[in-house]
């Protein structure tokens, strides 16, 4: 192992000389990177480099120069590339302002010697000279790093004092190009962690030198750091399965295969973990950032939200929120709240929130008589609240089994998670994209056993050439829209009673409504579509009413009034 110190310098002329001398005194060659310093500082650096030849018994000093200031990250990367080129295996990154206690160097070198493939990272121990604001700011970054590595492997990522194994670092330099400033220190560690580079953490004392020069610019650098966290967050999402697998490999090896096949469930569990560890506020803060990202980047979803708000605003005579970007973002955030509620529902923490149930008597009589029924739902509010219907039954009345038809391919994975979170398991998801006679048989059996089957009435699954999923045009909020006929066709095939199920959250309380639609839907072979119209009309009328009552809780973020395209 041969190690070189890399010091990025930007106008730290006063302190850098002492730093270089201490490092050379400990036997380390030095690469100085002049990151566009002023003339005075450049002169000092040049002198330091020249003394190289004067002191033959000391390790060499090498000077690199950026003609213009390119940022700390860029300077370090220039130094690392040069170190690699010169044949060093490791590089010690040190700040030029003298804030790091260089007494720690031998311990760091020894650690790198013992584990040459690892990064030796510094956990700073601050004295009283540190501005408190910086400390709190650091904490936010710590939390983000824990999230983005799904681990606590990096307790502190912001201390610019560490030893890199150059073999692991070199492949990362191209992707780190955008982290050219204060974001570099954190991003390189996160990416090394993603690449499964071991991280060893050692303490180092840090002081803010009197009259010291910090180049941290609060607004610019905080924005850059926020952008970095967002970037890393999405990078983390992509690496989810691997990261989670590493998390569990050490503890419960059995999880490995399961995680690998179902990164989605891992994602859900991770969110749950965030909630558990950080509480509702952290979860909301987290979702806020994610939603902001979606709002900014998903033009189609944003437009769909605005179109819906505009139509509803007109339909309601101005009683609902106007179609502004602000309200549209609130619409997005309401969706985020639903995600939070789902977790609360799973973890049983919604039990204390009042839930107003309309149609409880109906449910009770269905359950007592063990009569199955089909429930036509909407993407409105939070259907997890279906569970509250069950809880509202008296203890002597066994709750009916609920089967929810969903359009997601993740249904099976999701089921598994539900079983884990809710062992009583009165809740089952079945995927409708593979709707076949087999599915019909399964549902028929469930209904016959007194179960409830829920299917959304406001979303059209994409299933080429399958008439079951064909749509019917019906006016909704002032313009024709396409609604699926699937629910009514299924109801007719099953020959069971049909209800509509809506849910919403208003003023903190939950509202769940079970409304009668038909005792039995009959569709004569020759005029099926015509026969569906009255049922669809009743559904659309009820949906419109619910949207007016809960304007920001209808979640169809796609062009709803456009004819769906079926791939041929």
């Amino acid at each position, binding site marked *: 192992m041969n190690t070189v110190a890399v010091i990025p310098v930007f106008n730290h002329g006063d302190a850098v000389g002492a730093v270089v001398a201490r490092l050379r005194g400990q036997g380390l060659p030095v690469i100085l990177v002049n990151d566009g310093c002023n003339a005075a500082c450049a002169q000092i650096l040049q002198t330091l480099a020249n003394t190289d030849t004067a002191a033959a018994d000391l390790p060499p000093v090498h000077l690199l120069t950026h003609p213009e200031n390119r940022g700390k990250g860029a300077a370090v990367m220039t130094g690392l590339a040069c170190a690699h080129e010169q044949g060093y295996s490791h590089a010690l990154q040190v700040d030029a302002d003298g804030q790091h206690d260089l007494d720690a160097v031998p311990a760091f070198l020894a650690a790198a010697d013992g584990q040459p493939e690892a990064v030796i990272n510094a956990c700073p121990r601050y004295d009283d000279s540190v501005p408190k604001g910086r400390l709190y700011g650091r904490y936010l970054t710590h939390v983000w790093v824990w999230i983005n590595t799904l681990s606590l492997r990096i307790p502190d990522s912001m201390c610019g004092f560490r030893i890199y194994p150059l073999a692991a670092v070199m492949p990362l330099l191209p992707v780190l190009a955008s982290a050219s400033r204060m974001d570099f220190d954190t991003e390189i560690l996160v990416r090394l962690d993603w690449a499964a580079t071991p991280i060893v953490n050692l303490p180092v004392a840090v002081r803010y030198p009197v009259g010291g020069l910090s180049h941290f610019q609060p607004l610019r650098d905080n924005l850059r750091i926020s952008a970095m966290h967002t970037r890393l967050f999405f990078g983390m999402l992509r690496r989810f399965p691997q990261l989670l697998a590493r998390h569990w490999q050490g503890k419960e090896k059995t999880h490995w295969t399961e995680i690998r096949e179902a990164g989605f469930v891992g994602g859900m569990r991770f969110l749950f973990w965030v909630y558990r560890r950080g509480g509702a506020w952290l979860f909301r803060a987290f979702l806020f950032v994610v939603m902001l990202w979606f709002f900014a980047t998903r033009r189609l979803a944003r437009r769909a939200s605005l179109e819906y708000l505009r139509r509803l605003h007109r339909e309601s005579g101005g009683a609902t929120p106007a179609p502004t970007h602000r309200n549209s973002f609130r619409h997005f955030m309401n969706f985020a709240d639903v995600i939070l509620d789902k977790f609360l529902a799973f973890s049983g923490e919604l039990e204390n929130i009042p839930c107003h149930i309309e149609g409880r008597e109906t449910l009770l009589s269905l359950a007592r008589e063990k009569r199955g029924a089909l429930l036509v739902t909407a993407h409105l509010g939070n259907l997890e609240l279906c569970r509250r219907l069950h809880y509202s039954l008296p203890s002597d009345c066994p709750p009916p089994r609920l089967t929810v038809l969903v359009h997601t391919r993740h249904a099976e994975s999701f089921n598994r998670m539900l079983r884990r979170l809710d062992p009583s398991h009165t809740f089952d998801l079945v995927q409708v994209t*593979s709707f076949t006679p087999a*599915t*019909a048989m399964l549902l*028929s*059996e469930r209904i016959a056993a007194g179960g409830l089957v829920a299917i959304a009435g406001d979303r059209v699954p994409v299933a080429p050439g399958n008439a*079951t999923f064909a749509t019917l045009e019906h006016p909704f909020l002032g313009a024709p829209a396409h609604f699926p006929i699937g629910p009514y066709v299924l109801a007719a095939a099953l020959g069971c009673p049909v209800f509509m199920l809506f849910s919403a959250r208003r003023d903190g309380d939950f509202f769940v409504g079970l409304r009668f639609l038909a005792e039995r839907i009959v569709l004569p*072979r020759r005029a099926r579509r015509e026969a569906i119209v009255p049922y669809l009309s009743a559904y659309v009328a009820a949906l419109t009413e619910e949207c007016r009552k809960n304007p920001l809780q209808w979640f169809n973020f796609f062009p709803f009034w456009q004819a769906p395209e079926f791939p041929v």
Partner: protein
Amino acid sequence: MLELIQEVKAFIIETLDLEDVMPADIDDDAPLFGDGLGLDSIDSLELGVGLQKRYGLKLSAETEETRQIFASVRALTEYIVAHRANLASGQR
């Protein structure tokens, strides 16, 4: 077997409310869906439910298996026979 084929044909006509179709009109080997009898996917749902209620059939979600079973009246009848045999051996 022949008897059961007739029964299944009558069952299909009754379940799907096929007017103007007599059991004799249905070819034992013609496809039920598409070109043959001309049933559509809505019919397939009703047929699925009917078969579950009447014969207690249960299929896996495997689409290929479903396609084979619904290939013709004969295929469907053979499946019902096999299902009954299964049940009988299960009870023993």
